[in-house]
C-alpha cells in the first residue's frame, strides 16, 4: 500500500522538463514536493498564476497572492499573473501538459465524478470540469476504495459526472492503472499489494498488463 506521499512521489516521476502542470487540492498538491532533480516544471494555479512557489514565510504572507485552494503562496522567478479568463484559456486551449486531481469515482470508460453527492450539500465544481475537458494528460490520484471499503474504480460512475471519457490514468494506494478500451489496465503494483487484492477491490473491468511490475521507492 502506498502512502499519500508515495502516490505523489510516483506521480512526480511522470513529470517532464518544461511542462506546465496543474495540481488539484489534496494528494495532488504533494506532487510539488517530489519534483525530480533536473526537471523544471511550472505550476499553474487556475485563479491566475503561473510559476507558483512554496508557501510563504510569515513575513512574506500576501493576502493578494493565493492559490486555487485559497492558501497563501509565493511566486518563483519567471512567474506571470493573469485573469481567470486568460487562465482558463490556457486550460481549455490545451496548453497545460498535465493535470493531477482527486476523484470520488472513475469508470472503465474514462468517466470521472468528483464534485457532487446527491442529497448532500453541493459545493460546486470550481475549475474541475474545465480541467478534465481541457487537458489531454490527466492523472487521477485517489484511494482505491471509499470509507466503506467499496471500489472507486467502477464499471459506470454512480455520481454526477465531472467529465466523460477523459481519464487515461489512475493511481491509487494499490497501484497504477491506465484506462484502455473500457478497462483498467494494471501497470504497476504498490509494494506489498497482490494482484488478487486489486482484483477483489476493483469493480470495473480489470486487465493485468503483461509488463506489470512493482513500484520501487528509495
Amino acid at each position, binding site marked *: 500500500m502506498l502512502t499519500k506521499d508515495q502516490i505523489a512521489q510516483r506521480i512526480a516521476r511522470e513529470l517532464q522538463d518544461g511542462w506546465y502542470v496543474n495540481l488539484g487540492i489534496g494528494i495532488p498538491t504533494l506532487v510539488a514536493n517530489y519534483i525530480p532533480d533536473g526537471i523544471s516544471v511550472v505550476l499553474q*494555479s*487556475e*485563479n*491566475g*498564476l503561473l510559476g507558483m512557489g*512554496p*508557501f*510563504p*514565510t*510569515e513575513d512574506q*504572507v*500576501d*493576502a*493578494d*497572492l*493565493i*492559490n486555487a*485552494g*485559497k*492558501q*497563501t*503562496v509565493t511566486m518563483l522567478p519567471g512567474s506571470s*499573473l*493573469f*485573469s*481567470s*479568463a486568460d*487562465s*482558463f*484559456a490556457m*486550460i*481549455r486551449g490545451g496548453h497545460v501538459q498535465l493535470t493531477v486531481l482527486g476523484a470520488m469515482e472513475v469508470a472503465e470508460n474514462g*468517466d470521472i465524478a468528483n464534485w457532487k453527492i446527491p442529497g448532500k*450539500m*453541493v*459545493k*460546486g*465544481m*470550481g*475549475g*474541475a*470540469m*474545465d480541467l478534465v*475537458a*481541457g487537458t489531454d494528460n490527466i492523472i487521477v490520484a485517489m484511494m482505491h476504495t471509499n470509507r466503506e471499503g467499496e471500489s472507486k474504480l467502477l464499471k459506470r460512475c454512480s455520481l*454526477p*459526472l*465531472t*467529465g*466523460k*471519457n477523459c481519464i487515461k490514468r489512475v493511481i491509487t494506494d494499490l497501484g497504477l492503472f491506465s484506462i484502455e478500451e473500457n478497462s483498467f489496465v494494471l501497470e504497476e503494483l504498490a509494494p506489498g499489494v497482490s494482484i488478487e487484492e486489486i482484483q477483489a477491490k476493483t469493480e470495473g473491468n480489470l486487465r493485468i498488463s503483461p509488463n506489470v511490475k512493482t513500484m520501487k521507492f528509495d
Partner: protein
Amino acid sequence: MNKIVKNAEEAIRGIEDGMTLMLGGFGLCGIPENCINALVKAKTKNLTCISNNAGVDDFGIGLMLQQRQVKKMIASYVGENAEFERQLLSGELEVELTPQGTLAEKCRAGGAGIPAFFTATGYGTEVAEGKETREINGRMYVLEESLTADYAIVKAWKGDRFGNLIFKGTARNFNPMMAMAGRITIAEVEILVEAGELDPNQIHTPGIFVQKIFQGVDYEKRIEQRTVSK
C-alpha cells in the same frame, strides 16, 4: 471626464432591488469590500449575484446572505458558508453552478458582444442538460450563453479618474471580465492616482469599461487559508 465618486455609498446609488450584480474576487481575494459593506447597509434585496464564490459566513457576499439580500447566486464554488447552505437547503436561495472557466468566459463574452460560444467543458454532465451540443472537428461541445449584469462591482489595486485599472497578484481573477460585462461598472481601488500616472502599457482594464471609481477605505483583505512554511 471625471468618473470619481466620493465613496461606496455614492457608487452603489442606482442599484435597486431585483437587479443582477457581478462581484469580482476569488474566495475573499480581490473582492470589493467597500461596496459589499455599502450594499449590506443599503439592504438592497432580491439580488442575483454573479461571483465565483459566495464569501464566508461573516465576510464578503456572506454578509449579504446573512441579511437574505440574495435571491440567486451564479457561482462555480460555494463551500465554506453555513448560512448559504441553510438557505439553499430550505429553498430560500437559488443557485446556478457554473464551471469556473465557463463562468469566466461567459462574463468576457458578455462584455465583448459575443452572445454564445461553444466549449467542451461540461459535455456529458448535468451542466450541459437542456443546452445545445454539437460535434465540431470530431469532438463534442456545449453551447454556452454569455452573461451581463446591471452593475459590475470590481476591486483593483490602482486606478485613475478615467477608470483605468491595475490589479495586484491573484486579486485580478474575475475582476477584469466582470468590468467588461457590467452595463454600469463600479471600481473601488486601493490607490487612486492622477490621470497620466499609470503607464498606459501596464493597464489591465482600460477605463472604457468603468463608469464610477473611488478609493476604498479600511481594507481588511481577510485570508481564508493562511498557510506558511518555516
